[in-house]
């Protein structure tokens, strides 16, 4: 090493390169196999992302390019006649356009899709070298306008859209490599260029096509589509000056163009040979293993339509009339089908703006407060105190400070709603600690308030604690989602079904109790206001009556509508909770029946070699082990609870029949509840309906969800009948030749797979 340093020292400063080959070889010869030289920060992640020279799987400089690829010249206008040139440019633009969707929908990388276009590489390389905002360094010079003007517009709009996606990606909502690959190979995607510069360029090209190339209909459509893609930039609220409604037109143009393009016959002219190539991976700094370029599959224009429709759906949240509607929008919009990655990335940014506003309607704190008001806070002593006390009073200051904490957790909740299906579950895992900690803090605050007389009695020495009640509701809902989503993701083995469903049932019971407490408060408060009216009628005219009348009017104008609305919403939540409870209970019964005939066990004895069933159980419930309320039942409580559901001799057949009848009656009640909820969703915000679901912006999605629950009910019913037929009056010991198979009925809710009995 010393001699290497001597050599470097001896070199004149004009030498940029030093030949270290011999020194390296000498040093390498002395390296022992046991030795490892690595930076401390080189961990497994670094290792699995490292490349290796001369390894064909990892070294993109070893990529072999064809002669056409090597000789391809971006400054040549391919095609003999004008007609042929238009056909070539149309084919290039079509392929480029499709590449965008291959990139986004098939989770491919940019170098294997959009950046594999030689024109994109060439122009963005020039721009990166000299990033001028007037695009003067971003040109083609073939000498033909169809390339130099129109194709350039196609490239610019495409790259601008890549920039838009990069902006969304940088906001940190979606994840690199799993949701999206945004590696631009170090190329600058028009960072200094304004949208108007690009759209003006596209407008000029469209004018040119209209005037001089009236037959280039397909090319014009593609350019229009690409132009609307670039304009999606205006939907990101960071730079938004116009209202969303004004921008909706962009997406409608996109959909219209895509619909027309998908109907056009496939072009017979192919792109010029070498115009799409993996060569960029060889020419530019590539931090990833070499990959073949990905050919479009043919459904790309449909994918554009889906993306645009999904973004339009996100924009619809603007029309929400209440926080409940925003909340329900977030709950349903990404539920039955995972939305397009661009829509998912946009949703939280569109909803929760950088200027600390929600949809330009609420501040973060007001938004949080409104969550309480539309659930349990309205009509409480605390609400009254907050209204009458000065803004700088300790109560209001402390409350606002809590609202900031609530906003932080709510931010996580809303952001989680648009995550991919796996991250969604993990998001709840993280959130639970936040909700739990918030509940503990807010409960202490409310207990202090109670000691000052700010409390709402619920009877039987119980009080409401409106803030704690809402946080607890959110926490329980998150816990249930975390547990049930595990079924959809196939995280649980059949032997775990009992514990997971029993725990679900346990959580649903707590949720039901909590909702019933809110319901009681709402009923009481409504009754108090109604009683004021009766009292008014009895009172004689005078100051007392005037004061009561004034209070009554205030309550009727400001409290009653919200109380009634909250009552109907909580009624909906109760029905929904009952559904979850019933379905979990039926799953518990199915497991217990099958365990009773010895075909399944709720413990996996294979863990005994290195671990134990109890330790494995504790690992499964690690997420909940630290949760204060509801307390996690002990391992033995889980084990013992199963005995209560199992069917034992004597009189096995009679007891089994009773279980079956009970299941069928519970499922009938569940079906009635679904019908009731679906009816409420269909009727929308009809004031006469007993429920408010808050789903008018996601009506189809909510109906689809409840339709899937209905299918689950039918499937569970059918499985109950099958178990009844299979077991009948046979001895519980005669099922040694049977096994379990997990099935999900078509279109049924993935939270409720079936445990079916099958012959081995």
């Amino acid at each position, binding site marked *: 090493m010393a001699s290497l340093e001597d050599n470097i020292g001896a070199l004149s400063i004009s030498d940029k390169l030093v030949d270290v080959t011999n020194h390296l070889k000498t040093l390498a010869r002395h390296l022992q196999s046991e030795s490892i030289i690595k930076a401390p920060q080189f961990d497994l992640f670094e290792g699995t992302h490292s490349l290796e020279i001369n390894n064909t799987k990892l070294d993109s400089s070893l990529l072999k390019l064809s002669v056409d690829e090597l000789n391809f010249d971006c400054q040549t206008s391919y095609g003999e006649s004008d007609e042929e040139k238009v056909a070539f440019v149309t084919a290039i633009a079509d392929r480029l356009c499709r590449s965008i969707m291959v990139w986004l929908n098939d989770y491919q990388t940019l170098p294997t899709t959009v950046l594999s276009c030689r024109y994109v590489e060439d122009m963005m390389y020039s721009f990166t070298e000299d990033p001028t905002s007037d695009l003067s360094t971003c040109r083609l010079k073939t000498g033909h306008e169809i390339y130099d003007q129109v194709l350039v517009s196609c490239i610019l709009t495409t790259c601008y859209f890549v920039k838009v996606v990069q902006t969304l990606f940088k906001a940190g909502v979606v994840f690199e490599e799993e949701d999206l690959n945004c590696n631009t190979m170090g190329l600058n995607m028009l960072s200094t260029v304004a949208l108007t510069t690009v759209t003006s360029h596209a407008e000029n090209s469209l004018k040119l096509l209209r005037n001089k190339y009236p037959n280039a209909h397909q090319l014009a459509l593609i350019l229009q589509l690409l132009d609307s893609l670039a304009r999606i930039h205006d939907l990101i609220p960071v730079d938004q000056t116009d209202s969303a409604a004004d921008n909706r037109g962009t997406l409608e143009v996109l959909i219209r163009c895509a619909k027309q393009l998908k109907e056009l016959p496939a072009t017979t002219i192919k792109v010029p040979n070498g115009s799409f190539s993996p060569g960029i991976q060889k020419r530019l700094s590539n931090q990833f293993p070499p990959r073949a370029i990905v050919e479009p599959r043919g459904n790309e224009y449909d994918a554009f339509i889906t993306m645009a429709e999904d973004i339009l759906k996100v924009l619809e949240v603007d029309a929400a009339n209440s926080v409940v509607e925003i909340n329900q929008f977030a709950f349903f919009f990404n539920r039955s089908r995972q939305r397009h990655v661009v829509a998912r990335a946009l949703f939280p940014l569109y909803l929760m703006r950088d200027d600390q506003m929600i949809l330009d309607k609420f501040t973060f704190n007001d938004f949080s407060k409104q969550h309480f008001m539309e659930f349990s806070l309205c009509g409480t002593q605390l609400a009254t105190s907050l209204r009458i006390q000065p803004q700088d009073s300790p109560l209001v200051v402390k409350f606002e400070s809590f609202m900031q904490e609530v906003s932080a957790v709510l931010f996580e909740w809303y952001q989680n709603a648009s995550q991919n299906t796996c991250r969604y579950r993990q998001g709840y895992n993280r959130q639970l600690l936040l909700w739990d900690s918030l509940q503990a803090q807010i409960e202490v605050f409310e207990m202090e308030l109670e000691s000052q007389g700010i409390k709402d009695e619920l009877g039987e020495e119980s009080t409401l604690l409106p803030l704690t009640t809402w946080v607890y509701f959110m926490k329980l809902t998150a816990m249930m989602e975390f547990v049930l989503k595990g079924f959809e993701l196939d995280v649980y083995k059949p032997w775990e079904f009992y514990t997971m469903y029993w725990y679900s049932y346990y959580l649903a019971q707590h949720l039901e109790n909590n909702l019933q407490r809110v319901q009681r408060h709402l009923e009481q408060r409504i009754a108090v206001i109604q009683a004021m009216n009766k009292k008014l009628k009895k009172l004689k005219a005078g100051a007392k009556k005037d004061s009561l009348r004034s209070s009554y009017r205030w309550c009727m104008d400001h409290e009653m509508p919200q109380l009634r609305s909250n009552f109907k919403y909580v009624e909906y939540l109760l029905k929904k909770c009952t559904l979850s409870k019933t379905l979990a209970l039926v799953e518990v019964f199915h497991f217990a029946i099958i365990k009773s005939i010895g075909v399944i066990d709720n413990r996996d004895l294979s863990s005994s070699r290195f*671990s134990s069933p109890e330790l494995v159980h504790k690992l499964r419930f690690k997420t909940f082990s630290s949760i204060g309320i509801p307390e996690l039942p002990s391992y033995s409580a889980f084990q013992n609870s199963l005995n209560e559901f199992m069917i034992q001799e004597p009189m096995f057949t009679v007891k089994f029949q009773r279980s079956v009848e009970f299941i069928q009656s519970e499922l009938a009640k569940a079906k009635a509840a679904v019908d009731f909820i679906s009816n409420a969703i269909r009727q929308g915000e009809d004031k006469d309906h007993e429920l408010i679901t808050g789903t008018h912006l996601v009506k189809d999605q909510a109906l689809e969800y409840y339709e899937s629950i209905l299918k689950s009910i039918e499937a569970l019913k059918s499985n109950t009948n099958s178990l009844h037929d299979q077991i009948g009056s046979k001895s519980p010991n005669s099922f040694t030749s049977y096994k379990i198979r997990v099935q999900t009925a078509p279109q049924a809710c993935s939270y409720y797979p079936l445990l079916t009995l099958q012959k081995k």
Partner: protein
Amino acid sequence: MDVRYRQLNISDNNELRHVQRLIDADLSEPYSVYVYRYFLNQWPELCYLAFKGDDTTPIGCVVCKSEQHRGARLRGYIGMLAVAKEHRKKGIAKRLVTIAIEHMQKTGCDEVMLETEVENVAALRLYEGLGFIRLKRMFRYYLNQGDAFKLILPLTERSCTRSTFLLQPETELA
């Protein structure tokens, strides 16, 4: 068939090449030499090879590591496992994994973790047969875009407590 199992000899460069050959033939993920060096040089005692009789060319290998996880627990990790095609379905993979876990348990690991493709039924059967459970699913985890399960086998109680609470014992009862 008589199969011998032993730890890798890190002083023998050929053994690294054998491991590379076995893994490269089988796994969809292209690993650089740095990944192999990362594991084998730091945890040679957690790499086991399987040999047929007196042969010197291994027919299977398991590559593991063990490290502190978030400063809260000692986590064993199974990085790679491969058995030559012609020697599969003879229990060699299970034996290799078992030996590795035994070593991890002896050296104080609180848990053993690994990731495997959701579609890799054979791997899931093998690990779940040893008591591993699926803790979470990871979206498009592999280069081939497949989802993965993160599997964990708890060896001690520390595996069953959130890291946050292991780091702050005073809040454990909160």
